[in-house]
């Protein structure tokens, strides 16, 4: 059985799965790519050829769409086969009688092997179905974990890390919600506020795909500014990544009204409350906040919003956030279900597990899934280029995980006897 994540080496992640000698032997003939994956690629490429032929005879937009979807697999397979063929040629030259040729081949064989690995990786990525929300903008939601002031302060640091990262990258981001808590504690908090909940909307298309690896528990290890004895504390902040819609809204609205869509919410199932201070209201008080709270009754999901002076705007943003949360929940339920029926694949990505640690004393940020350490924590927390690398490492890990999942699906199909003796 495989061990749970983290995978240590990213470029050859699959070799960790059942890394038995027999499998290595088998891989030699497939250019390092698991045979199941290669077989699948060939099947898809064959389908692509057949569809192309069909389209030439008779154009049908539906068929064209499917052909378009799988064309990148066909292209990647083509490149892969060519690279493999030239490697085989080099291999052949190693047995040549000509010493000079043999030397030349030996020089080239290393780079050709590396290229094949990379091309193989691209092929696996092409085979991995795109996450259905990947092309969408997203909402990044940050909340403190259980515990006191320190967790809230760290949540604030995490939120501003994402905000400045988006600024640095030139993404179109705006703060939808930024709610601080009125917490008793010391005055010196190093510029961090006690965060209750904050939401950043990243409006660029594809932002969901870029940030989805950020979802999970982020842990901090540091001496809180409020700590007098100098003891290191551990606290956590939780990040959610939710799908959102482009602001122009046309796609959004058609999707909101379609009961089949993940974003559909029956208004009759939502309770709306306008929150006010207790006691007399109306003419007696003239508060400036006009907070709104929505509760999705079937799931108990609540959203509160008070960032705008306008009640209508708060309502609009609350609905947006509610739709995004519900859509994400629905998607997760389906993914969990799919995963639980996949035998033998244990994946450590449930919300409860920490995905990352920020250690101030050691000036280090560790991504627990990719297993990578990054130094220069200041740059990470300022959303600088090191943080870009951290995000990248999580993203690549997710891609690898997706590949693992199709692999698992493929192997399910192979008869078990074949699997055991497979290879030689």
């Amino acid at each position, binding site marked *: 059985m495989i061990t749970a994540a983290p995978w240590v080496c990213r470029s050859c992640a699959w070799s960790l799965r059942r890394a038995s000698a027999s499998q290595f032997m088998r891989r030699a003939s497939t250019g390092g790519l698991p045979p199941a994956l290669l077989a699948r690629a060939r099947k898809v490429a064959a389908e692509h050829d057949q569809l192309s032929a069909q389209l030439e005879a008779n154009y049908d937009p539906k068929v064209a769409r499917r052909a378009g979807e799988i064309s990148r697999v066909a292209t990647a397979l083509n490149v892969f086969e060519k690279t493999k063929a030239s490697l085989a040629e080099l291999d052949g030259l190693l047995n040549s009688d000509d010493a000079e040729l043999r030397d030349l081949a030996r020089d080239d064989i290393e780079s050709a092997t590396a290229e094949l690995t990379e091309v193989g990786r691209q092929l696996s990525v092409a085979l991995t179905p795109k996450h259905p929300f990947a092309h969408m903008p997203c909402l990044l939601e940050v909340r403190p974990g259980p515990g006191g002031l320190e967790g809230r302060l760290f949540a604030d640091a995490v939120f501003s890390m994402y905000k400045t990262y988006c600024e640095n990258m030139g993404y179109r981001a705006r703060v939808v919600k930024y709610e601080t808590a009125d917490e008793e504690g010391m005055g010196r908090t190093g510029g961090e506020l006690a965060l209750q909940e904050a939401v950043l909307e990243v409006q660029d298309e594809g932002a969901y795909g870029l940030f989805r690896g950020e979802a999970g528990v982020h842990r901090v290890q540091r001496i809180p500014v409020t700590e007098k004895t100098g003891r290191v504390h551990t606290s956590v902040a939780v990040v959610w990544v939710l799908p959102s819609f482009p602001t122009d809204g046309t796609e959004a609205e058609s999707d909101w009204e379609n009961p089949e869509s993940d974003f559909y919410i029956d208004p009759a199932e939502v309770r709306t409350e*306008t929150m006010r201070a207790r006691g007399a209201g109306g003419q*007696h008080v003239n508060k400036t906040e006009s907070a709104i709270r929505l509760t999705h009754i079937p799931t108990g999901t609540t959203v509160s919003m008070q960032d705008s002076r306008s009640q209508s705007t708060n309502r609009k943003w609350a609905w947006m956030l509610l739709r995004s949360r519900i859509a994400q929940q629905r998607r997760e339920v389906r993914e969990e279900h799919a995963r639980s029926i996949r035998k033998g694949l244990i994946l450590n990505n449930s919300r409860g597990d920490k995905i990352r640690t920020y250690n101030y004393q050691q000036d280090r940020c560790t991504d627990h899934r990719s297993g990578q350490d990054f130094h220069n924590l200041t740059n990470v927390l300022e959303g600088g280029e090191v943080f870009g690398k951290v995000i990248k490492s999580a993203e690549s890990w997710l891609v690898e995980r997706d590949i693992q999942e199709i692999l698992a699906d493929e192997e399910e199909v192979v008869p078990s006897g074949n699997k055991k003796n497979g290879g030689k």
Partner: protein
Amino acid sequence: MPRLPPSLFWRAHQISPHAPNLLLACRDLPSTALELRWIKDHITTTPSTTTPPFLRLAHLIRLRARGLPLQYVLGTQPFGTLTIRCRRGVLIPRPETESYTLELADVLFRTPTRSLTVVDLCTGTGCIPLQLFASLRARFPSLAAHGVDVAPGAVALARENARQLGPLGAAQGVTFHRASIFSPAAGLPPFPAGEIDLLTANPPYISRGAFARSTARSVRNHEPRLALVPDGVPASVVAALGCEAFPEDVFYARILELCRGWRPKRVFLEVADGEQAGRVFL
């Protein structure tokens, strides 16, 4: 009002050097942070050619720190789809009023006619008839909204607010009248019985005692008493309307009297609480 602990001011200072001043009016850090953001937003969205931003910020914060309601400081209050102008001397629209006005618009939207008449008594900024008009004008080819107020400042402000509906709203649909509702027909042109589809009013409804006891300080100190406490009505009128025991109900008695002549299809009145509702409606 309880004194705020010094540590709170120090923490406010961490947000911004301006925040401790704001804290005096806002009383807690979360609202202080929010208001600071709104004041800054206001400055960036309404650029001034004469005063540099930092001076405007300092000035607005000073006004707010003195307890002046934010809506008077910034000059506006969002209301439904509108941005209602606010000025000293005219009551600031409340979120409760906003909520039911939008609900009322929804109900009226389903009226199966082509024309519609709405009347709002004690209209203040004009927020109620203006929002009704804005929500319904696309639905009703012939739509008339009237607002009545006794305060000249309120009527002037309501007319200013009508301009954001464009020439159409200002010119034909919405009309504001300066009159007391205790004058004959509340100063309105004669309506045949049944002509009015909806009559609304958010009249002054706070008793003298409650004004002293249960209104917020910034309401008491900065909003017009005329808009809140109905104690300027002559004793003889109060007696004639049978309101000696509860003089704070006198506007409702007068409005219901007007309704007996107009026979509006629907009436919606804002009241202080369940007790007042019981006295007025039962």
